[in-house]
């Protein structure tokens, strides 16, 4: 990954308290796993930003290296990589995700 790409990803992750790298958009997710994450965050009713990796192919590859995680979607809260769809579902079901986003939004 080029230093420029890494810097671009770091900037995105730092500037958005809740950020999802996904396939498609909030309104039209292009993958069931990305849709899971959008649905969960919509249910929590919190503000979040998304990056469509299908429209930004350099980020699509770069983000996998950045997080050492091979799949999309990827969720970042307060600059920290939280996980993908499976972990989001587990954290949502246990109530931890709600806590994490509340802490992030209050900070």
């Amino acid at each position: 990954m080029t230093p420029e790409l890494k810097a671009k990803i770091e900037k995105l992750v730092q500037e958005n308290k809740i950020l999802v790298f996904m396939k498609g958009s909030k309104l039209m997710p292009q993958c069931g796993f990305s849709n899971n994450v959008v649905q969960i965050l919509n249910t929590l009713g919190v503000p979040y930003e998304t990056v469509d990796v299908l429209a930004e192919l350099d980020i699509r590859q770069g983000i996998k290296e950045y997080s050492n995680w091979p799949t999309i979607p990827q969720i970042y809260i307060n600059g920290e990589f939280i996980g993908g769809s499976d972990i989001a579902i587990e954290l949502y079901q246990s109530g931890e995700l709600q806590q994490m986003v509340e802490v992030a939004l209050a900070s």
Partner: protein
Amino acid sequence: MINPQQVKTMIQEQFPEAQVEVAGDGEHFEAVIVSPKFEGKSKVKQHQMVYAAVNDAMASEVIHALSLKTYTPEAWQTVAGKI
């Protein structure tokens, strides 16, 4: 196309001590892994360890998606009790 048994073998090579179950349709897979290696590690770290075992297959998109559930033996006892 690869079959669930091949995915299971890849994971089992890195986690010889683990209980591994894999199901899938040839591109999308789901796996449950119970291993003492997960003790003291976060969920993200646990999943990263498993993804590392299948990294080549995922990078080449032979595996399109691998949904994971990872447990320590202790956590598995709790989950298994509920099923």
